[in-house]
Every structure is written in C-alpha cells, then in structure tokens.
C-alpha cells in the first residue's frame, strides 16, 4: 500500500492527499478531476486490477457538491483502495474511465442516472435504472423521498 501511495504522490504531487479511514481503510483524495483517467490507468497497471465499485455521494452544503468514489481492489496481495474525487458545481462533468475498466460503463451510467454527474467520452451515457424521459436524479439530497405524481411512470 505504501508503494502505491508513493507512486501516486510521485505522479500527481500535491493533487493527491491520503486520508486515514475510520477502520483501517485507505482513502485517497484526488483534487484534480481532469486526471482521473490517468490515475485509474496508473493504478490498474500497478496491481489494482479490479474496479469493484463506482458510486457518488451528494453533499449539497459543501463547495464540492459531489464526491465520486472509486473502489479499487488489488488481488495479489489483497489491498483495497478508495479513491475519492470531489466535483464542483450543480451539474459536473468528468472524464469517463470506461476505457480503462469495462465495468465502469454501467457504473457511470448509474451515477449519471442517480446523481446527474455527466461523463465525457462515455460510449453510451443513458439512464440505466430509471426510464429515459424521467426528470430529476433520485439520489440527490434535494430529491424528495415521497412526492407528487410527477414522478410516476406514464
């Protein structure tokens, strides 16, 4: 793990910060969102061969409203690394990593569907869980849990 962190700081300098987790996990915050694809490629070529999960968290009160979470797994030896990518703005856009990990294709569609984060150079950025002309992004904090009939399928 130290090796990987050393490698990341070597390549990305000040734009990565290591955050200790609550129960021994390693979180890495990448502050420069334009370099996420590069970071994923670097991690993939250095043992972290699997992208286990890609999701987002919405913090409406923060300056960086969204935080993408790239959950990486190295198999030999078993290491888990969580890369966080804070994003600014109401409708942020970020480089897609679906060319680095094929599994990111659907995960990014889900993040787009649920949070409204757009991915550049994604082969097929459509809604995946909700239907196509649905309005709103359900997992945003301002989205109501129970609502009007506007959100019914017609």
């Amino acid at each position, binding site marked *: 793990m130290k090796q990987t962190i050393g490698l990341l700081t070597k390549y990305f300098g000040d734009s990565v910060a290591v955050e200790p*987790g*609550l*129960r021994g*996990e390693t*979180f890495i915050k990448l502050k420069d969102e334009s370099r996420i694809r590069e970071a994923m490629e670097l991690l993939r070529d250095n043992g972290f*061969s*699997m*992208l*286990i*999960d890609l*999701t987002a*968290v*919405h913090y409406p009160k923060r300056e960086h409203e969204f935080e993408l*979470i790239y*959950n990486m797994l190295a*198999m030999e030896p*078993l290491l*888990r690394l*969580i890369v966080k990518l804070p994003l600014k703005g109401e409708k942020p856009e970020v480089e897609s990593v679906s060319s680095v*990990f*094929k*599994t990111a*294709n*659907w*995960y990014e569609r*889900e993040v787009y569907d*649920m949070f409204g984060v757009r991915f550049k150079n994604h082969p097929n950025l459509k*809604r*995946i*869980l*909700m*239907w196509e002309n649905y309005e709103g992004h*359900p*997992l945003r904090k301002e*989205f109501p*849990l129970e609502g009007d009939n506007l959100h019914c399928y017609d």
Partner: protein
Amino acid sequence: MRGIIYTAMTDIKKEIDIKTDRMIVNMGPSHPVTHGTLHIVLELEGETIEASHTNIGYLHRGVEKLGEYRTYQKFIPFTDRLNYTSSINNNVGYTLAVEKLLGIQSPPRAQVLEVIACELGRIADHIVCVGINAVDIGAFTAFLYIFKYRELIYDIFSRMCGARLTTSYTRIGGVSRDLDDETIRMIRDFLTRFPSAIDELEALLTKNRIFYDRTRGIGEFSLENAIQYGYTGPCLRAAGLEWDLRKKMPYLGYENYEFEVPTGTRGDVYDRYLVRVEEMRQSVRILEQAIENIPEGPVIIQDHKIALPQKEDVYNTIEGLVSHMKLVMEGVQAPAGEIYCATEAANGELGFYIVSDGGTKPYRIRVRPPCFPIFSSFDEQVQGHMVADAVSILGSLNIIAGELDR
C-alpha cells in the same frame, strides 16, 4: 476433379449465405427465463445473435434512497429484498458492515450461527441457480429432484427466524434468535441427506450428453475480461482464478474452517455449473464443522446502546426500559466516517459502503451488488451465439433482478 468439388462446395456456401434483414427479438420484460424482470433486445441474423441490448431497472425500488431515511436497524428488512434467493447472506453482509462502522464484533456463538445461516443460504442460492439453469436448457427432472432440498433449507430458516424467504435474521451485534435443539437436529438431518442429492444431480447433469453440448464452450469468458468486468464469485472462479473472500479476507471466523475453493478452466456455462456444484459440497463441509462446534454464550452483544435488552429487563427495570425506548425511538448512534465492508455472498462480492455523519441514520448507503457488473458483460458474451444459448448464459450468470436494480 478436386477443383470441381471445391467450386461445388463454394456454390453451396453461397446458397446458405443469403443475406436477410436483421430480426429484432424482445426477450422480456416478462419472460420465463429472465429471473425477475429484465428486458433484452436481441438483433438476430438467422439464429445467430449479432448484437444485444439490455434494459434493466424494472425492479428498481430505490433501496439506497430509502436507507437514508431510516435508522440502521430498519434497513435490515430491505436487505432481504436484494438477492431474494439467499436473503440471509444479505442480512449478514449488512450487519457486518454496520458492526464494522461501530467497531464492534458479535459474540462467538452468533458468529457461528451466522456462518451456518450463510452456508445454508449459499446452498439454497446455488440450488436455484443450477436447477433453473437446467430447466431453461430443458432438463426439467434435475430441477425437481434438487428443489426438494431447498424446501428443507427453508423449513430450517422458518424455525431459525420465523420466515422462509424474508428472513431478517441478523441484528446489529448478533442474531435475533438462538438455535434450538430441534433446528440443530433438522440441520444435521439435512447434512446427512444432501450429499447424496448432489450426487443425484450430478448423475443427471454432469455427464449428460445434451446438457454438456448445450453448455460446454458457451459464454466462454477469459480471465482478463472477467477481471475487467469486475466479476466476483462463482463466475470469476469458473474463469480460473482462485478468489474467495472467505479465504482471502476471512470474516466471521472463516479461517477456522477447512474448505477448498473450486475453480474452472474455461469460464463457460459448464464450468460455472461445476463450480457451483462443488461449492455446495464445500458448504456442506463447513456446515458439518460449524454445527459440531457451536460455542456457548449469548447470541447478541450485551451492550444496550446497540442491541435491545431482554424483555424481562424492559418490564421490570428502569434502565432496561430507558435503553429500549432510546433504541426504538432514536436508533444506534454511529461515529462519523466512511467504511466499506464486503462479504462473499452466493453470487460474488456483496459490499456495503456506508457514509455516516454521526447520526442514527446513514448519510448515504451504497449496495454493491455482485450481479450488476456481471450482467453488464452479457451483451459482449452472447455475441455470435445462438438464441437458445443466450438463455443458458443468462441462467449461469445467476442474475437476480432485486439485487441488480435495488
């Protein structure tokens, strides 16, 4: 002479290769083989699949959104409805994640009970997967023989937790009920009868010429591709990698049990079937060790800020009453922070990512379902196969729509 034959053969080939329009065939949303509700649009050239497009989301209930509005305890019933063929594994996975967030461990007896529950759930899940996969291909008999044993497992579940399908067996810091002697007897009885049932299943399928021809080489997936797509569980093991979180990152004391991790070589439907069958045998092995070594003691943590106190205490002491009320009205107070906890469910890695802001409800709860990344490879896998093979591939991936759409 040779030239003549050659031209004759090419002529025949020309006749066969008549270009026809591509036909679009809809499989689903309501179709017997879709195992839930999902929609596959197949583009066919004759009988061969040229392209496939999958639509999912028909069973989306917004579990993650609902979780943000409920206390940690109240999310447990939602986990039943993720992978509903082995709901008990989801219960265990979720409570382990919350326990990790709280920094506690369930007592030794509860851990062994959870292992027993998990392995029974795994067997039930594999029975459904293997049985239904065989039915989809046309082998109805095997399904009928093996499904009897799932019924026995569900009888055990209904004694363990009062429900057959929606179990909600675990609690934060332990399990809801203790095993009684009758249930232990039922599990022992099941363990003596089940191995012969697997032999029966194998006698019907493994060397069955029709089954072999329908599954060997179908949906072959290389290991590199499997890793790229984020495969976990039996499908990854069938592709040839010995990867099992119970071995690699033991939880619930799995390091104390002796079992082996089966792997395949080609990663096709037949290998996935073989891996699942062998896993059932290994689960029986784990169960045999677990059932003989259940330690004495409580089944839930004795901290009344986390687990409900005994009913007697609630009625007779003021401390019991207060902690009962606090837990029911407010819930468990979790520290602020983020955790990811993964367990090996029947289908692969089931992970829960919890973001806590220090309250009694999660700020964000993310379920990492094993079959979501696996199913995303379906379009690539069926290309060039026949329509009937799409059915057998779909069955072998073990897609559970409840978990896929959440």
